[in-house]
């Protein structure tokens, strides 16, 4: 075990995967010599050479499109999109090809591709550098979408994503990159895609979240606990496929559900969870579901970023309201 922040854990994960399997490649803008703008790919090119850790020209559609070709040819590319706000020009390649090649060819060809990308806000960045558009990818059949919230989950999920025989979008909440360190195993281990993590058990209310909002939910839960409200916090880790069974199980004993994400409120990941509850577990609810989310507005520049983002205070406030329902 070593104390690592999320960047170090991801870096270790990439090292391990490349060492274990020659077909794993890393490519993207500034991932080679520079080691990535957040240093996630630091040292990889030195170790594995410029044929396996590749600085590409500035072209997101090409990064993903060429990776699809590499995947078809038998490689396991781990492509980086420098910020998730720049993934849109690769959208066609992801939606129309990466997600469909297996189906289109009835399994003759497949696309074991990982696209890593920093996401979410909270660091007062430039426009387009703080986007939370994960729900877009969740709606696309054929794509998997994961987002870790801790260093050790980051490493284990990345291992699963690289081994996965199908395309995985791997979002990294950049606010959490260096937020905290924890003990992470140096050995290979996998956190299965599609399994949520019970962050904190509780009996009064379930809070489902993921990514950058998980630490805020934990803080809120702590504060609520002092008021006698025991919050069960679930970190989804995978957004598609969703571990809905875990949500159901929790709601079955808490009978109250709040969903927290920083992405815009409408048509987000929270909608899907609330909808499934409305379809499958509505009779178990003692109170309405509540979504605590970003606003239906572009992520503002830094001056108003705080007002836009949910935080522990707001989460605690909304959950208290929910408990008083």
């Amino acid at each position, binding site marked *: 075990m070593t104390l690592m922040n999320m960047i170090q854990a991801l870096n270790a994960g990439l090292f391990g995967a490349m060492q274990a399997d020659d077909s794993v490649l890393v490519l993207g803008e500034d991932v080679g010599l520079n080691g990535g703008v957040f240093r996630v790919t630091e040292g990889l090119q030195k170790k594995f050479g410029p044929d396996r850790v590749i600085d590409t020209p500035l072209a997101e*559609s*090409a990064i993903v499109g060429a990776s*699809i070709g590499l995947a*078809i*040819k038998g*490689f396991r590319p781990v492509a980086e999109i420098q910020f998730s706000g720049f993934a849109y*020009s690769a959208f066609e*390649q992801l939606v129309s*090809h990466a997600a469909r090649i297996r189906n289109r060819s009835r399994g003759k060809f497949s696309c074991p591709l990982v696209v890593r990308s920093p996401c979410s806000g909270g660091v007062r960045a430039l426009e387009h550098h703080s986007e939370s558009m994960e729900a877009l990818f969740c709606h696309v059949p054929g794509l998997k979408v994961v987002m870790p919230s801790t260093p050790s989950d980051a490493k284990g999920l990345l291992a699963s994503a690289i081994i996965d025989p199908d395309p995985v979008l791997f979002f990294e909440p950049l606010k959490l990159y260096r937020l905290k360190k924890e003990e992470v195993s140096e050995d290979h281990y996998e956190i299965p895609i599609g399994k949520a993590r019970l962050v904190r058990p509780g009996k009064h209310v379930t809070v489902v979240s993921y990514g950058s909002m998980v630490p805020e939910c934990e803080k809120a839960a702590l504060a609520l606990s002092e008021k006698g409200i025991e919050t069960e916090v679930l970190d989804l880790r995978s957004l598609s*496929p969703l571990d809905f069974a875990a949500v159901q199980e929790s709601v079955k004993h808490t009978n109250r559900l709040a969903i927290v994400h920083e992405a815009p409120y409408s048509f987000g990941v929270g909608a899907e969870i609330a909808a499934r509850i409305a379809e499958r577990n509505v009779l178990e609810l003692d109170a309405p579901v509540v979504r605590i989310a970003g606003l239906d507005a572009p992520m503002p520049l830094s001056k108003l970023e705080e007002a836009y983002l949910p935080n522990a205070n707001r989460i605690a406030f909304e959950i208290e309201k929910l408990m008083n329902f």
Partner: protein
Amino acid sequence: MPEKKVFVGDVRFFSVLDESGAVDSKLEPAFSSDELKKLFEWMIQIRAFDDKCVKLQRSGKLGTYLSVLGQEAQVAAALAMEKNDWLVPYFRDNGLILARGAKFEELLAVGGGSEWGSQFSGPNILPVAIPVATQLLHAVGIAWGMKISKEKNAVLVSFGDGATSEGDFHEAMNFAGVFQLPVVFFCQNNQWAISVPRKNQTASETIAQKALGYGFSGVQVDGNDPLAVFVAVSEALKKARQGKGPTLIEMITYRMSDHSTADDASKYRSLQETRAWEKKDPIDRFRKYLKAKKIWTQAWEDRVGQTIRTRIEESMRKAELIPNHPSTDIVDFVFLESTMELLRQREFLEEAGRREKRDDAK
């Protein structure tokens, strides 16, 4: 020296056969008569298949069909390819796909609406890409893979003149140039992208010259001359396999048919133009050449044509025999391992199937 030339580039055009079928012996490839016959057979094969498919579409047995009519010399590219090369085709490549070994029934299956058809026989053929120009990047990726694993093969990726306007064309060409990838960009400039004529697609004098912006060469060939197409593709593939990088080939040809069975070209182009191109028909021209070489006889062509038509009819029966695959196929190939939610939806499909059967039984 305040002013200087920092770049000069050019593009050459060449043909081997002229419109009368006369050959430029300096450029003539050294083919055996079997190879020449194969080329001719492939050309009349796609013409016959197109003809059949258009009819099948009219009678409702196939979906929208895109004919190769006029572009049959595309098949010459298949002759230039080696087994371990890859073909990344576009939606007007049935001639090429068949020549590389796909079966009629496979194309009929795709056209008839079954994903199973896209498992083409013949080595290393990707399913047809419908979103224009997107497949160029896949070709670049495959070629990149070859380079990384030091294979001495190459990728041929095919597309139309319209495709050169898309961003993916540009990004693919640029990556291929930067990484010196073994890929041949085979542009079938058939003068039209649905209703948009070549001159409104780009202000560039030729499409071949676009390669100059990526640091490699482009060449224009008479695309109704299968020998010229062969020579160009074969040189470019050889160069690619030798690690000397990509080439853009502009094959000058003409889309003699409507864009598709859903299109009516008379709305936007003159009969006069089409007539003028009729005279350059690639099959007629090649026939004259073979005749002069004493390889062609009418009897031989009739016999070959008959065989092809019989095989097409047989393939139709085979295609009709293809079982109507179960509706669960819809969800079974989304991922290698289905998710919980997909398994739930699979059950729904099975139940719906059972319900339908019950309802039918009533």
